[in-house]
């Protein structure tokens, strides 16, 4: 098993190195062959590991690969922890990555940075695998930062575009704000356990809950709450939760394949995965869980609103991703970790699908992303159309699709939760269903139905994308539609995750739901009676009415609620706040400290001031040296008198 796991990790890395350093020598074909081969090996072996875990009853694998270093008795290592949670993540990551690799052949066909792009996405696959397979916090942080760097490189892939290089810097810095919390969270755990190993922390979970730490004055804070909130701040950065979500919409500046891979299916779900992995810690801090719940719920609803007013096809999908990440986070906060991971998995398929479909439309229209210049594409691009429909239905949770099972279960779990804040969260996720359906089908109708608003020029060349593009679409559409049926039972209500996810009995909402679970068909029937379905359908109908049936109504609503529209159009003014207040204040502080502190005070007053002072004293003292003998004689006499006087007295 050691060699298999090492191969899974190292084959994409090796491929990335070859494509990156020898790109010119091996050419385009060589680059995509070697990277696809690397990821394919990784994917096949990951599925093998998943099978070994599920069917052959392979025990949990937890071994060190090598010791990074050992300081003060704390071992810092690189090692793998492979249980079913890991195996599932590995399979999802490598599968989506493989699809995206194939798709990239078509999408990046004309790009001069072809080899570089393949190198980056393979490097990303390596980094993501290191993250999910880690058995300790050090390697987790390594993977965490490594995926961030690759994301930085890929958002800025088209490095001459000012918007792209603005977006990648922004993404990196916002993520660093999250990592700032993350590293403090790790430090808090090390403070208590003296170890970076997951299991040492998990075993101590209940004990850490009792430990306290001084933060403000003498007030005692639960160390575990501090640690969990710190870790979750990291997740807020990576998984783009409010208010650290601002980087994700801008990240759409990167090529579409990475929007699918990194900014929808895998990297952004790292935070969700991490919290699920840390469930033995989060379970013991209800404060942290409430924090997670409220942040997640806010993200789920309020970023969904933003999706309603976007005209850029990729940005709609990006806001939809934010909202869905919020759903996953809500599940974590409600202690329904398995539901969060389940939604993560289904979302990985249908959201990667939607992004790739959007990309298919974009290349067909020669890099046109404005939905106002689309419409009626159904007849030109049938495969893209039908697969997009599959993805959109899964996204809104249409009964029977993968998204239905995961989202319905998630919402029910939140409804059953007793954790503070779950009431608010429940209404947010419920309302979110309507919003999701509305923006999803707004996009769907604007792109594929209705009047053709395409440029004459583009229409002539309009045709369905080549097979390297449509094959991944179909391959992703299949799980988007059906993966829920076989997986809901074991994942949510069965023993799939085993000990990988730990839930206290009092928080066990999925256990409560499981008591009433009688297979997927019954679940489906139950779903038909819930408000969730009707909210989703209502959303579709409203979208149909506003954007197909009576487009004037949409304009009328926009005008009627201009204030709200402006608020949404400006993304709640959060970007403005960050740029005008935070970034500007940082520069002003820097300027003040530099000019005022270093320049005026230290150099001006202290350094040059001292030099001047010495000069001035010397100038005064110099006058005493008059050169007249009688002045010196007088001084001598005075001095003698004082000395003699002092001696006698």
């Amino acid at each position: 098993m050691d060699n298999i796991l090492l191969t899974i990790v190292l084959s994409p890395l090796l491929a990335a190195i070859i494509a990156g350093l020898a790109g010119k020598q091996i050419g385009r074909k060589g680059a995509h062959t070697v990277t696809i081969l690397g990821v394919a090996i990784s994917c096949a072996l990951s599925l093998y590991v998943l099978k070994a875990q599920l069917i052959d009853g392979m025990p949990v694998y937890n071994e060190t690969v090598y010791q990074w270093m050992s300081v003060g008795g704390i071992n810092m290592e690189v090692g793998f922890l492979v249980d079913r949670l890991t195996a599932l993540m590995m399979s999802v990551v490598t599968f989506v990555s493989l699809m995206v690799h194939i798709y990239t052949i078509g999408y990046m066909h004309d790009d001069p940075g072809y080899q570089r792009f393949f190198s980056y996405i393979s490097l990303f696959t390596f980094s993501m695998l290191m993250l999910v397979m880690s058995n300790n916090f050090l390697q987790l942080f390594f993977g965490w930062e490594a995926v961030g760097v690759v994301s930085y490189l890929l958002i800025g892939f088209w490095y001459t575009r000012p918007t792209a290089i603005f977006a990648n810097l922004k993404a990196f810095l916002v993520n660093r704000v999250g990592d700032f919390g993350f590293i403090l969270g790790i430090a808090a755990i090390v403070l208590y356990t003296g170890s970076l190993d997951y299991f040492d922390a998990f075993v101590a979970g209940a004990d850490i809950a009792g430990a306290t730490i001084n933060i403000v004055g003498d007030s005692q804070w639960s160390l575990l709450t501090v640690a969990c909130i710190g870790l979750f701040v990291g997740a807020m950065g990576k998984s783009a939760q409010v208010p650290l979500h601002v980087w994700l919409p801008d990240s759409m500046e990167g090529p579409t394949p990475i929007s699918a891979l990194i900014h929808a299916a895998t990297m952004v779900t790292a935070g969700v995965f991490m919290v699920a992995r840390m469930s033995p810690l989060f379970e013991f801090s209800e404060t942290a869980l409430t924090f997670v719940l409220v942040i997640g719920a806010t993200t789920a609803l309020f970023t969904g609103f933003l999706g309603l007013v976007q005209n850029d096809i990729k940005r709609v999908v990006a806001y939809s991703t934010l909202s869905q990440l919020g759903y996953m986070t809500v599940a974590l906060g409600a202690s329904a970790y398995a539901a969060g991971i389940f939604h993560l998995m289904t979302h990985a398929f249908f959201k990667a699908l939607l992004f790739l479909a959007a990309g298919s439309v974009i290349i067909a229209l020669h890099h046109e992303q404005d939905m106002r210049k689309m419409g009626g594409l159904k007849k030109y691009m049938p495969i893209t159309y039908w697969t997009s429909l599959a993805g959109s239905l899964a996204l809104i949770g249409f009964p029977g699709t993968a998204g239905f099972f995961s989202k319905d279960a998630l919402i029910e779990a939140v409804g059953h939760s007793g954790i503070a804040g779950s009431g608010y969260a429940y209404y947010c996720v419920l309302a979110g269903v309507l919003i999701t359906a509305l923006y999803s089908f707004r996009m769907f109708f604007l792109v594929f139905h209705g009047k053709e608003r395409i440029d004459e020029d583009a229409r002539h060349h309009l045709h369905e994308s080549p097979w390297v593009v449509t094959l991944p679409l179909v391959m992703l559409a299949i799980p988007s539609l059906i993966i829920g049926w076989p997986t809901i039972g074991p994942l949510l209500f069965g023993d799939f995750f085993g000990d990988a996810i730990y839930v206290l009995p009092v928080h066990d909402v999925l256990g409560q739901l499981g008591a009433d679970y009688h297979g997927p068909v019954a679940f489906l029937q139950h779903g038909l009676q819930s408000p969730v379905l009707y909210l989703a359908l209502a959303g579709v109908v409203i979208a149909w009415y506003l954007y197909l049936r009576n487009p004037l109504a949409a304009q009328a609503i926009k005008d009627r609620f201009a204030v709200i529209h402006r608020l949404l159009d400006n993304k709640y003014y959060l970007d403005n706040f960050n740029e005008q207040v935070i970034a500007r204040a940082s520069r002003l502080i820097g300027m003040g400290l530099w000019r005022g502190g270093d320049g005026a005070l230290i150099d001006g007053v202290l350094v040059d001031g001292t030099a001047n002072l010495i000069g001035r004293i010397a100038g005064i003292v110099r006058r005493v040296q008059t050169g007249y003998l009688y002045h010196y004689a007088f001084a001598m006499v005075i001095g003698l008198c004082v000395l003699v006087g002092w001696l006698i007295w």
Partner: protein
Amino acid sequence: MCAGGLADLVAREAFTDMGLLSTIIWLPIAGGVVILALGDQRARPDRWLALVVSVITFALSLALWTDFDFTSARMQFVERLPWINAFKVYYYLGVDGISTPLILLTTFLTPMIVIAGWEVIKERPAQYFAAFLILEGLMIGTFAALDAMLFYVFWEAMLIPMFIIIGVWGGERRVYATLKFFLYTFLGSVLMLVALVYLHLQSGSYAILDFHNLPLTGTEQTLIFLAFLVAFAVKVPMWPVHTWLPDAHVEAPTGGSVILAAVLLKMGGYGFVRFSLPITPDASSALDWLLIGLSLIAVVYIGFVALVQQDMKKLIAYSSIAHMGFVTLGFFIVWAILANTGMEDLGAISMGITGGMVQMISHGLISGALFLCVGVLYDRMHSRQIADYGGVINTMPKFSALLVFFALANAGLPGTSGFVGEFLVILASFQASFWYAFLAATTLILGAAYTLWMVKRVVFGDIANDNVKALHDMNRREGLILIVLAISVLALGLYPAPLVEMMEPSINNLIAHILQSKL
């Protein structure tokens, strides 16, 4: 290890390989003198001689690593000869796990600097290369000296070649910069001399290891500590005695900046672990709040200052100050950890000091590489202003890839050496106080902000002007040094264990020593 004395000393030293340290000190100095004697000739024997000597020195210094006893905290490769008998001054050399990595860093970087100056230095090249070789020998001598007087001689002598390097091959404001550099560091060291003489009078010896065991009262310790503090804080440099550094860097030629950032700053950090902590542990303990405070100011305040720099060299200079803040923070966090967690937690203390040491080595490589990168650009465009660049990646893709790599390393990316020290120090400072760690961790944001913002403006974007358009990518010579440095940054980041293992016994010994009160 309480009572001093010669018997104790001998027992703690392993006399092996007489002469290796002397060789690597005097070989470059002799080489430098020969180059000076040869002078500038058309055939340019100077640079070849400099290269050969520096490479041989590096090769020889590798024996320090291969023959090093990794299990011992004792001084190794010891040499001891009487020098000035009247004052009991010895020519006394030896290294342990703390000084060896710093010597290796010095011998590793000197050939790089020689190669970096290969074609670039046109004015008095022989003197340029001679100055660096002589400086190399003196720096190694400083790290290897175990006699305080010998240490002081090397320490002060280093100023001369550095002074000349900035003063002769520097930029326009080099006179102001050299004067500031010289006065600052010289004034600092004078106080150190007073302290060393006092310690000699008390102990009757000039051996630094005797000073470690010398009992001192609280007042004595405080005064000695402050005298050392001035000398070392200026070198590190710590806020508020740091303003000489940006000026010196900006004016220095590329090689001067590299050696200044990579090695000379480490003299301050080395001084703290070799002198301040073990000689005056109680004063260090009593005044640790001051050092912690100044270190955190370096991280946060200087981080903000670095953000607004318009000159690349100044930016990297400020970044150096911020990164060196982690060194001093790691060293002086010891007592705060003890106060917070109780006596049993020696692991965290070890993390702090090890982190500070690793940070010194790592910063040497990364800041050296960044200054070399700026040198590559400066040689082509004769500008250090960020605003004069933009879109360099279009014309210099290979160089840009390396620059982005070093920038990420400077921002503390895991997998590069820049992460190791910062990670350890942040973990250690959390054990002392949440807020120390909080302030230290702001480097994650600030460090990334100032480094990558510079990268964005210099490297990315469309070609900004005709000068950038005319750039040609790095040549083999430039590529060689940057790639070698990139590999070492990566190697140290992926596998820091050998370095840490080398330091471990000495650091444990140091910790045992500083936890033992002298009062």
